[in-house]
């Protein structure tokens, strides 16, 4: 099965609101979250999208 779009990773500073299948990266600060998201974006060839101030997802398009 091929996926059109796929959440490759979830990066958050608030783990209470997250659950599910994609790998979840919990960070202490916003800066840490952004650094990790930048690296993941480059590694996974995905785009980091912001859903809220404390939640980023990396999506393969």
């Amino acid at each position, binding site marked *: 099965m091929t996926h059109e779009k796929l959440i490759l990773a979830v990066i958050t500073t608030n783990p209470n609101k997250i659950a599910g299948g994609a790998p979840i990266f919990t960070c202490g600060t916003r800066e840490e979250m952004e650094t990790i*998201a930048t690296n993941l974006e480059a590694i996974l060839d995905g*785009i980091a999208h912001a859903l809220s101030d404390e939640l980023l997802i990396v999506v393969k398009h």
Partner: protein
Amino acid sequence: MNEYTFPILFGVFVGVVTRLYLLKTDYRQYPTYLHGKIIHIALGFIAAGLGTIAVPAIMEKEFAAITFLALAASQFRDVRNMERNTLNELDQYELVPRGKTYIEGIAIVFEGRNYLVIFTSFISTLAYLVWNIWAGVIASIIGLLVARKFMSGSRLKDIVDIEYVEPHFKGAGLYVDNIYIMNIGLPARQKEILRYGMGFILKPKNFNARSTIANLGQRQAILHDVSTALGVYRDSGTPALVPLAKRDLDDGRVGIFILPQEKDIEKAKAIIGNVPTLENAIRMPTESEANKKGRKLR
């Protein structure tokens, strides 16, 4: 040597000249220099030969020979297949792909031009044989003019008004004017995009244009052409830096977001205006019987 030798040579020559004339390589660099061109000149030569030979064949009452033209048709359909396959393969390695609609448009053109060559050779040889060489020359000029008329389609500037708009962010959302383009999560990326990005609004001049620029293939063609002409701030593995075109559902305007290497508003406008309107994207809703009645569409 017989009475047909010179007319045939003349017809073939005119056909090849027509093909050369139609085979201008421009900024798109397709067909590529030399090898790609040789293929098309050779095929043009064959087309010219077929168009030319048809005339003496008719005059000698060799009507069966005309069936050769059917062979030509299948031959040139293969040209279209060949171009489509090649371009589709290459498209995967473009930073900003052409898109299938553009590729199909190019492939159709390659097939169509060979028929124009057949036509030009045919009427030139016919005129030469019926009257004299000067009639042949005049016929070939008419053929060339007809070919040129068919070669040049309309441009985007004929159907839309182009306006520059600075792209901006609302939260994580990137907007061109009021048209949402995409969500960019990282502040560093956002800065990059604001620094290099340019936004344009295409405002359709009428209802037909609205459907044409809504076509995804047409939009991709615009992005490809702009990125070819102005360069693109992008690499493999940076999917966030991608030129996009999105539509305003309310009024059919299209927001173009591009990341050129050369940030020049006037040049970009000229390039967008010169993008061909793709044959396969053109729609004419106003020609529909139902739409001719009642309220006028705008």
